[in-house]
């Protein structure tokens, strides 16, 4: 499935038959115009973005919801400035039959706590997830976490009732332009650069929680997807990788891997072998 904010309706043509779900850009209670440009900077093997959650707001989003229906389950990513806003968004979606699940984008700033993100404290994560759980009793609820504090936040989310955890969101980053001597962009880093960090988060978290983990961060090939599943993910999201490659190609590589290794996708998560089985690997 796509990572939130990285697949627009205009590009659905590319992913028909490829993804298992549609995950539109994070929706907020009110429309947001987003940040002024520049919103993007290239980074080594990655991208820094600062879009500012540009979106039409929940009401308008729901009016247009049919546009997102290409025969796949629709998972809606939501973000609020406060715990109450999160809960209201969930309540609004609870009765919407076309919505298959809700993903909480918990990496956005919490205005009640002086603008640090919800992920900055496990207590806040508990609060949001619990409130959303109550507001959305009958649909799967995913908590999308930042890398920072992932382990504690994951445990808190699970305890508060999340049905799955999405790991990870972008990592806070900065681009400086030595030429103009200006801060070029404050934003979040995504892409292959963060893949090893995301794999670690998925690995550490999946060992201590019993809910499924959805891996996200730097997937650009089928073997990247395999790596996430071996590390413990039950599903994988493709974000920045979809900007430079066709998602269908990634899926095809994934399928080739499974075929060549005589494995099934659902067995991958538990197909990790222990390290010391092979001496050769150690000494190469």
């Amino acid at each position, binding site marked *: 499935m796509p990572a939130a904010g990285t697949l627009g309706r205009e590009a659905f043509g590319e992913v028909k038959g490829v993804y298992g779900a549609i995950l539109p850009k994070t929706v907020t209670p009110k429309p947001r115009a*987003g940040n002024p440009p520049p919103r993007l900077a290239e980074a080594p093997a990655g991208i820094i973005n600062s879009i500012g959650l540009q979106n039409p707001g929940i009401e308008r989003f729901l009016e247009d919801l049919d546009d997102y229906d290409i025969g796949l389950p629709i998972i809606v990513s939501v973000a609020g400035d406060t715990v109450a806003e999160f809960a209201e968004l969930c309540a609004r979606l609870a009765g919407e039959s076309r919505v298959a699940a809700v993903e909480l984008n918990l990496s956005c700033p919490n205005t009640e706590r002086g603008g640090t993100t919800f992920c900055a404290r496990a207590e806040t994560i508990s609060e949001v997830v619990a409130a959303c759980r109550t507001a959305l009793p009958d649909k799967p609820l995913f908590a999308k976490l930042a890398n920072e504090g992932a382990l504690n936040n994951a445990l808190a989310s699970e305890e508060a009732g999340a049905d799955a955890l999405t790991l990870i969101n972008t990592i806070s980053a900065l681009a400086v332009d030595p030429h103009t001597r200006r801060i070029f962009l404050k934003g979040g880093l995504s892409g292959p650069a963060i893949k090893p960090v995301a794999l670690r988060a998925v690995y550490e978290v999946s060992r201590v929680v019993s809910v499924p983990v959805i891996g996200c961060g730097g997937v650009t090939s089928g073997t990247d997807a395999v790596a996430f599943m071996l590390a413990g993910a039950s599903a994988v999201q493709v974000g920045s990788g979809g900007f430079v490659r066709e998602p269908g190609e990634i899926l095809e590589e994934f399928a080739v891997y499974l075929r060549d290794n005589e494995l099934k996708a659902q067995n991958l998560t538990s197909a990790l072998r222990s390290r010391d089985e092979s001496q050769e690997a150690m000494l190469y």
Partner: protein
Amino acid sequence: MRLQRAEILSRERFGNHLLLRYRWNGCIPQPGQFVMVRTRSFAAALDPFLCRPFFVHDYDGESAALLVEIRGRGTSLLAGEEEEVVVSEPLGRGFDIGNGPVALVGGGVWVSPLKLLSRRLAGRGIPHELYLEIPSTAPEAYGDVISRIFPDADLVPTDDPERAPEKLLARVGDLSRYSAVCASGPLSTLAAVKRAACEQVCVQLAVRERMACANGSCHGCAVPVWDGGGRTYARACISGPVFLAEVLAW
């Protein structure tokens, strides 16, 4: 992003500019459209990460050409030795060709899409005139390429960058002669054309903003526009890169 391999047919280097021609059998590019380009297959190197956007400069039915100013790593790689590029279909909304007469105004490497535009206009017998700025600071090679590429253009030498747009517009003269002005140049030129012409004729400006996905997904290429009285952001990759001047909120 859907990309395909394309054979590089020729590279001509003029000073800091590169004219790159590649074999193209895909969709026919419209003037003002752009393509996303990488130099090498993604499997080989994850950095530089993103594709680079370039206006389609020219197209002859079998090959497409790009006019590239070499700025950083991506463009340097394009100027390198590889025998293939990885390239998208022509993307975005280009110029809207009416019945003319049309004034084509440009400067810098941004004159690129005006070539395909003037070719298309000529093909349809639509009268048009080209006005291109040549700054005195530009290397000689640049002037030579431009006069070779645009043999019929009115080349306007400019000294002071601040006053260049004004001088260019003075040469264009009475705008009411035209039914449309199509401009692609430095921001100061675009802004000046907008200011001067917007209320008299249909003005179309080719803008550009950093891009990642080029298919409307990432919201990275935001351009401020007026929308029902309010100021909002449009995506240059799908709503542009050519915009009606009055829509742009700058």
